[in-house]
């Protein structure tokens, strides 16, 4: 079977497994996993820009915040539900992502990283100081409702599982299309990409917009998960750093990498419990270790291991065949 076939089967099995998990596992952490999914969604967005298009962003916490506040303000003033938030939030953060993309067009490498970091800090400053966003007091969201029915942790788990699935599907579809190939072409060689007719300005800004919209969707879910947003969480650059860390540790240019990295960054502070301030140190150490020992990230490492296992199997099979043909094998 082809590698793509195995990937598809693995993905389907994983999603079916996740859907059945709450029924099978007693004392299931629906709330924790639902929260983890919001990080994975954000990481998928960041990976599209940083992993595939090669534009490093340390600012996507800003788009996460924009998604979260868009839905929080809508809910506060008009009593809207998560469904409306999931449409408006990504639209707003996507539009702002497009604008930021235009501003950052001529920047690359470290300059782009710093510019996007500046964006995250600007968003943080606005949230802290503009009365509409209520600073550190924050905004409370009411009971979560979907199609008229209220839902709690378990319901939220399924909502975010579905949204994560859709966003991963979208990312997968984009990446393997001609548009995704153009993104990767820009990462590999801007010059050659231009010579092939790829409009750098258009494709870079579109990558920015799609990536920001995806991360914004993660923010919307995050707001409804906590039912509370405040500048305490969104008013600094740590979310942005977390998301970039997730993509690097998990694997740049890999969907599986977004899942592994997003999961890692979301769960580390939780399992550290009382020591959760050490998460920064642990993440930093993991980041450095990845860059030094496995630049392709955890997903790349996993893929390499699986391929070598398959190759060994094939080699063993081939040797056995030869042995049988020569009449020297154990199978005789």
């Amino acid at each position, binding site marked *: 079977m082809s590698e793509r076939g195995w990937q598809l089967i693995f993905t389907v099995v994983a999603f079916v497994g996740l859907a059945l998990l709450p029924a099978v596992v007693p004392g299931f952490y629906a709330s924790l996993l639902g929260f983890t999914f919001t990080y994975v969604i954000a990481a998928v967005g960041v990976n599209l820009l940083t992993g595939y298009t090669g534009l490093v962003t340390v600012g996507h916490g800003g788009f996460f915040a924009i998604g979260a506040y868009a839905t929080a303000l809508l809910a506060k003033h008009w009593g809207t539900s998560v469904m409306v938030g999931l449409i408006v939030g990504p639209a707003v953060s996507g539009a702002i992502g497009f604008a930021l993309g235009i501003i950052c067009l001529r920047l690359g490498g470290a300059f782009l990283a710093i510019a996007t970091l500046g964006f995250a800090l600007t968003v943080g400053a606005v949230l802290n100081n503009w009365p509409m966003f209520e600073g550190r007091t924050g905004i409370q969201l009411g009971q979560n409702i979907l199609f008229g029915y209220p839902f709690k942790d378990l319901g939220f788990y399924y909502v975010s599982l579905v949204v994560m699935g859709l966003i991963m599907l979208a990312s997968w579809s984009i990446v393997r299309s001609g548009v995704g190939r153009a993104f990767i*072409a820009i990462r590999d060689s801007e010059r050659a990409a231009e010579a*092939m007719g790829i409009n750098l300005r258009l494709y870079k800004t579109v990558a920015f917009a799609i990536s920001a919209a995806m991360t914004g969707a993660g923010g919307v879910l995050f707001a409804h998960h906590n039912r509370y947003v405040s500048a305490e969480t969104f008013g600094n650059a740590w979310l942005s750093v977390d998301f970039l860390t997730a993509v690097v540790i998990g694997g740049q240019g890999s969907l599986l990498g977004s899942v592994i990295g997003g999961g890692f960054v979301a769960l580390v502070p939780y399992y550290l419990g009382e020591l959760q301030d050490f998460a920064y140190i642990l993440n930093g150490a993991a980041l450095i270790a990845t860059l030094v020992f496995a630049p392709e990230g955890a997903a790349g490492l996993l893929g390499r291991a699986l391929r070598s296992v398959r190759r060994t199997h094939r080699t063993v099979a081939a040797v056995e065949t030869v042995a049988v043909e020569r009449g020297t094998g154990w199978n005789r």
Partner: protein
Amino acid sequence: MESLSIWDVHVQFGGVKALDGVNVGVPRGMIYGLIGPNGAGKTTLFNCVNRFQSYSAGTIHYRGRNLGSLAPHQVIGLGIARTFQSINLFRSRTTLDNILIGMHTHLGNPIAAMLSLPGGRRREAAMRARALRLAAMFGLEEVLEQQVVHLPFGYQKRVELARALAAKPSLLLLDEPVAGCNEEETSELAEVIRRINHEFQVTVVVVEHDMALVAAICEEVTVLHFGRTIASGTPAAMLNHPAVVEAYLGEANVGA
């Protein structure tokens, strides 16, 4: 009939005149050579045609259209494709993906492509079929799914040619296509370039230092020296032209 006409093009880098009034006229359907010592401005001239480099004076027309107002990514839309002096492939991608990226101008509606709508899927299938044919033509079938960065040099050169042809160009700019190749690879590539010219009806402009190759495949050449056109004519005439000999060998050898 001239397809590419370069007239009085000037490019200045600080105090250096990289191109100082270059004139070149490439007739349609020809394999045309661009030669000259290192630093003569050959690659700079390609970059001008490609719009990677802007020029302070002069004009470049292709099939009657002035290229001066185009952005770099629009040049291929007029049918002008190129290769690079040092191989410039999309290194993390496979041979097939490289050729497919070369077809970017045939992608159609990007939204249909991204969401794999029926129209987008049809186009993708057609692009893949044509990419396979191109790969077969260049003997790349066995390495279709291999990352180009792991391919031998000769293969990478052929991937670059296949990728350049993927856009169905009418003019192909080749920047030192045989640099770093051994004799066998050189004669192979010479044959490939001739086939491209004949079978695809593509006008070819070659920048090359390998004079044997230039003499073998080019019908006409222009010689550049310090950013100026010093002569043009048949390869045989050029190699014996006193100004050309002087440019390559220095004054002391003239008449020796």
